């Protein structure tokens, strides 16, 4: 059983502090939905409102079409996986997993059977009688998932559950979480500040800033078609130019900047539209910037190499533009076609108008 989750004009205030500002979201039944944002943006608060640990100051939370007002966390069809997992250290693994059944008064035989099934699902068969402290980080993680699933929730809520794991394990658990979600087919709401997690796992991502939902979309749209300057600067890396729109034609804005006139496409979202005379940012991703080997492109610069970083599969190049001394980052694949540059080498770089996007000037993510 699975259910959709609907937030309708939700406001959450703590005294003068507003943690959620007029948030409306519709999370589809059976979808892997991620709320992405920097720490303090209100994403955990929103999750707690869904799980029932706090009541919105205004607005409604509906799960499966049912208004959750006045229904406590122990009676909601949700299960929450905590950031620190919150496994019960004084219980064995199987008791942890089947705690929700114990609460319902299910007999010990039935509970042990269910525990065995879930332990098999999370590939921890035979570990049921161990204590929590005897497990590794990744195993604890999986036990927390099993414990939540055992309650047969219609919606599983995950509050940055991977943040305590090391990189390798985190990447592995991403795949595993996604697989489990597809296997059990229930709605997952996942909270993270890690865009990698958000983009790899989710059907849809909501990007939050200071209690406001800035954009809701699938991962590729969030990355390729950001609606706001915040989303463009928070998700992935972006080079940023400041300027004023001089002219718009056929969806391409000509923007006057310190580095001359830049050509960049306008957002397809009417709410992010820019018009002549507007103050805008032009964003272009490092992987869209290229060395020019004689072939012209829409936006071209002379630049001096400052520093090159080798990342194995990629080279990250930091350059200073000749026109404004602005630092620009580009990256290219280490396929052997480009020989590394030494510092102070003078090069020509550029990017196409389709690769750059002009967005209204607004708040930016903290660097």
């Amino acid at each position, binding site marked *: 059983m699975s259910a959709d989750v609907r937030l309708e004009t939700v406001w959450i205030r703590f005294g003068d502090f507003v943690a959620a500002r007029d948030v409306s979201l519709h999370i589809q039944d059976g979808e892997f939905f991620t709320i992405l944002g920097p720490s303090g943006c209100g994403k955990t608060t929103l999750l707690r409102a869904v*799980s*029932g*640990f706090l009541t919105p100051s205004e607005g409604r939370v509906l799960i499966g079409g049912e208004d959750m007002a006045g229904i*406590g*966390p*122990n*009676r909601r069809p*949700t*299960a*929450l996986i*905590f*950031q*620190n997992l*919150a*496994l*019960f250290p*004084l*219980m064995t693994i199987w008791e942890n997993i089947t*705690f*929700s059944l*114990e*609460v*319902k008064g299910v007999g010990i035989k039935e509970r042990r059977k269910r525990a065995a099934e879930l332990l098999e699902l999370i590939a921890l068969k035979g570990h049921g009688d161990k204590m929590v402290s005897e497990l590794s980080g990744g195993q604890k993680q999986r036990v927390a998932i099993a*414990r*939540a699933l055992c*309650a047969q929730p219609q919606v599983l809520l995950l509050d940055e559950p991977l943040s305590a794991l090391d990189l390798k394990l985190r990447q592995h658990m991403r795949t595993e979480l996604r697989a489990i979600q597809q296997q059990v087919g229930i709605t997952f709401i996942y909270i993270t500040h890690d865009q990698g997690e958000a983009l790899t796992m989710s059907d849809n991502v909501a990007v939050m800033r200071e209690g406001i939902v800035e954009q809701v979309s699938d991962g590729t749209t969030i990355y390729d078609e950001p609606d706001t300057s915040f989303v463009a600067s928070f998700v992935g890396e972006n080079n940023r130019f400041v300027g004023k729109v001089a002219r718009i034609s056929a969806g391409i804005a000509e923007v006057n900047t310190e580095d001359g006139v830049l050509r960049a496409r306008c957002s397809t979202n009417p709410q992010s539209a820019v018009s002549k005379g507007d103050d805008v940012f032009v964003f272009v991703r490092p992987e869209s910037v290229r060395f020019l080997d004689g072939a012209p492109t829409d936006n071209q610069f002379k630049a001096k190499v400052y520093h090159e970083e080798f990342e194995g599969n990629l080279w990250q190049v930091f350059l200073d533009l000749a026109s404004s001394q602005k630092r620009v980052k580009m990256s290219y694949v280490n396929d052997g076609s480009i020989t590394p540059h030494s510092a102070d080498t003078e090069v020509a770089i550029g990017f196409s108008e389709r690769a750059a996007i002009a967005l209204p000037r607004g708040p930016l993510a903290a660097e």
Partner: protein
Amino acid sequence: MNLVNYWREFFLKNGTAVALFMIIAVGMWLFMMIILPQLFMLDFSIRANVPPPKFGTEEHYYTLEHYKYMVFGSALATDTFNVIDLSVFFRTIGAAIFVTLIDLAICYPIAYYLAQVATGGWSRLMVLSLIVPFWINEILRAFAFKIIFGSTGVINNFLIASGLLDQPYDFIRNDIALWAGLSYAFILLMIFPIYNAIESLDKNQIEAARDLGSPWWRIHWRIVVPHAKPGISSGCTMVFMLTAGALAAPQILGGPSSLWFTQIIYQGFNQAGNWARGSAYAIILLVSCIVFVLVMMKIFKVRFGEMMK
């Protein structure tokens, strides 16, 4: 060899002055304040009762007669057992258990509230209001209780004025004043260990249990109480020991017919002039309390190491 290394490291780590101070202070405390007096008590208790000038003479022989007296009474008595002393002893232990349970019932919710629910200024105010009454002298407090619970005290006056009683209830004769006084006297010793234990419980544990559908009582039964068990045990141990060994409160608040075992010990030393019997009784009380606590710890599977945390 290991021990030598241990001490060398102890000196190196703390410096000679601090290390010496610690050894002398702890040693003095242990030996002068705890071991030596108890050894004297033990020695007294297993010797004949003679006046000090005859100490060390042949009349000051070793004997178990005082212990025997506690159980069987005087050889002249008609009863087979020393019914009076034994019944006082068991009543004292029973009452100490009762007071401990009352304190636990009162203090666990308060400690939980302080540790997990109350925040900032409010919790500090609560702690302060728990501590301030203990600035008042113990005897003064006992007399205050005597006045409050007296036949013309505030409580009786209130109960009569409100029509719940038509004549004063004798709280003192019925030991209620005593239980209240003792429960009140050791409340802090129960609250703080439990508070310490519950405070270290991760709030997420409680929320996780709640999220998994648990009603509040099961959260306490399965999560909070098991976590707080060491604190609960050390609180109960202290309250039990101190209640069983209390003297001032029973002296002042006890009813005319209900004696506390410590009062019998006191009589042995002061009125009967029988230090030997007083010592024997004191040793019996001490050993019984320790055994009782150890048995309880065994039953509730509490380890000493955990309690010291």
